[in-house]
């Protein structure tokens, strides 16, 4: 069975949710699948003003992956170690800055596994960072036992439209 079939099955079973742009008519160039925890935040009932602001912006930031032709270098990061294949999408507009972690099932198909507030993670070698990365891998294994994510350091292999060089570099 292909990974796409597995994904359809997980969606059918309510384990993953397709992020469809909220704005009518927006394109779906790439696929983002969201796990239950993040989905319940995105679809949460109305909260206080700060929560509403944060969730609205988070959704817009996640939809960049789905809708935009170009993905800027600072939007998508591969976390250390590269062999774990865990990537991070940043939503940094407001406090708290949020990190959405996930792995690529195929090019342009991102499976979001977990998310965290940046302020809870400490420096990149912290126990907290290691824990969220381990959780990302654990959620992947739970979802897709037997299927490996794409393992690469080249963002162009997981995502189309990555603008890796903005400016002309003079080569000597």
């Amino acid at each position, binding site marked *: 069975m292909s990974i*796409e079939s597995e*994904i*359809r099955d997980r*969606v*059918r*079973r*309510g384990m993953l*949710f*397709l992020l*469809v742009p*909220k*704005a*009518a*008519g*927006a*394109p*779906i*160039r*790439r*696929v983002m699948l969201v796990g*239950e925890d993040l*989905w319940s935040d995105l*679809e949460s009932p*109305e909260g206080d*003003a700060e929560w*509403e*602001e*944060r*969730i*609205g*912006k988070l*959704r*817009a*930031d996640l*939809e*960049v992956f789905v809708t*935009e*032709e*170009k993905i*800027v270098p*600072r939007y998508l990061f591969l976390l250390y170690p590269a062999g774990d294949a865990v990537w991070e999408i940043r939503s*940094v*507009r407001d406090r708290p800055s949020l990190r959405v972690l996930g792995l690529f099932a195929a090019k*342009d*198909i991102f499976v979001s596994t977990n998310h965290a507030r940046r302020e809870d993670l400490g420096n990149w070698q912290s126990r907290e960072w290691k824990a969220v990365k381990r959780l990302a891998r654990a959620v992947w294994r739970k979802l897709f036992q037997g299927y490996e994510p794409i393992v690469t350091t080249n963002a162009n292999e997981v995502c189309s439209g990555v*603008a890796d*060089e*903005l*400016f*002309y*570099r*003079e080569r000597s």
Partner: protein
Amino acid sequence: MNSSTGNAPKSRRDLAYYRQRFRNRVFSRLVSFVAEQAQEQKVTKKEVAEKIRKDPAQLSRLLGSPSNLTLDTISDLLLAFDAEAEPFAIVLFKDRRPSNQLHPLAASVLDMAPPSAEGKTQSAGAGEKIIKPIGHGPEISFVAGPV
């Protein structure tokens, strides 16, 4: 989830979403333009920074995140390439043409029957044809040419 329409007050979430979406789209368009023109005109980061009277580190910060851009800095960056933005198109949701961009996996998921009722619902998701016949307006256009 559908676009916010109708006469009800817009929710805070919708307001925040559309503001950020607007910022992101402008930013994405700007970055695409800069990347394309910089390669075509063979312009380095240092040269662009000098033209807008900033240092390269400041320029990197400006182009690092949508939240760092202002209307002034957008104008400056375009001017560095002898360009300016045309007044952008404004489109009513009801007048939007459907997008012709639909990833095949998304299409197949959206065509599926709704998940079984185990307390897990997916709004704006499985079983609905999300790409309704409302249009996708033209993007903000940047015009390159002599100042």
